[in-house]
């Protein structure tokens, strides 16, 4: 397998394993994550499409280092694995760090494993109209 393809697969497997075996933030079970990823992928296609267009490429790829499947437009298919692992890793770290910061503020130990996302108080309060703390 070409090297860029191998590295992409490794990065995706590593990030998924990091979540499932170690961080266990529950991110993959949240609709918020999958909706955000769908939006991110749409915008990635625009930006990456511009970067990789063969008519005027900003980034030039060596054909022998990748599968050679370029779609949509001229985007190397590997780029989507690259983007997935990069953004997912960022979100995993973000969720974990936020939880830690919240736990520190409320003086409780951070909960490493939450099977389901705890609903925010305003979601359970029927009279809630204020959803932001500002």
């Amino acid at each position, binding site marked *: 397998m070409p090297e860029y393809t191998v590295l992409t697969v490794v*990065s995706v497997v590593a990030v998924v394993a990091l979540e499932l075996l170690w961080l266990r933030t529950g991110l993959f079970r949240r*609709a918020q994550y999958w909706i955000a990823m769908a939006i991110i992928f749409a915008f990635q296609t625009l930006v990456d499409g511009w970067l990789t267009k063969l008519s005027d490429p*900003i980034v030039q790829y*060596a054909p022998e280092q990748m599968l050679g499947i370029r779609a949509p437009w001229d985007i190397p298919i590997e780029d989507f694995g690259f983007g997935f692992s990069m953004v997912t*890793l*960022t979100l995993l*770290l973000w969720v974990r760090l936020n939880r830690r910061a919240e736990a520190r503020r409320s003086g409780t130990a951070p909960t490493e494993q939450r099977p389901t996302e705890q609903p925010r108080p*305003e*979601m359970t309060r029927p009279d809630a109209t204020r*959803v932001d703390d500002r």
Partner: protein
Amino acid sequence: MDPYQYLLLMAACVVITLPLEFVLRARVYRRWRLALAAIAPVVVLYAIWDIVGILRDHWSYNPRFVSGIRLGVMPLEELVFFIVVPLCGLLTYEAVGYVLRRVAAIRATRTARATTDRERADA
């Protein structure tokens, strides 16, 4: 403008996602320390990958569209990319979270109102 094409594309990403911070209350810039802490390891890891890719000839950068400023073998633009793209990711994620919470809150209000109306009708 051509040498700044890549940088301008990154600037456009920052500008387009900026309203998410305020309009959809992402509060990512507001928590800049946490954002920095989440993005820093990603920058390091993906910069290493980028350098490997450059040295192993997986990809190269068109001199026409980059500033020419380099950090070792890596163009400045790539460092900017590894900061901007994760930042856009965080803004999107938090904005979606805000919208989902708003929808849940509105639904809850409606359910509560319907319940009170029913109770009033029963009384």
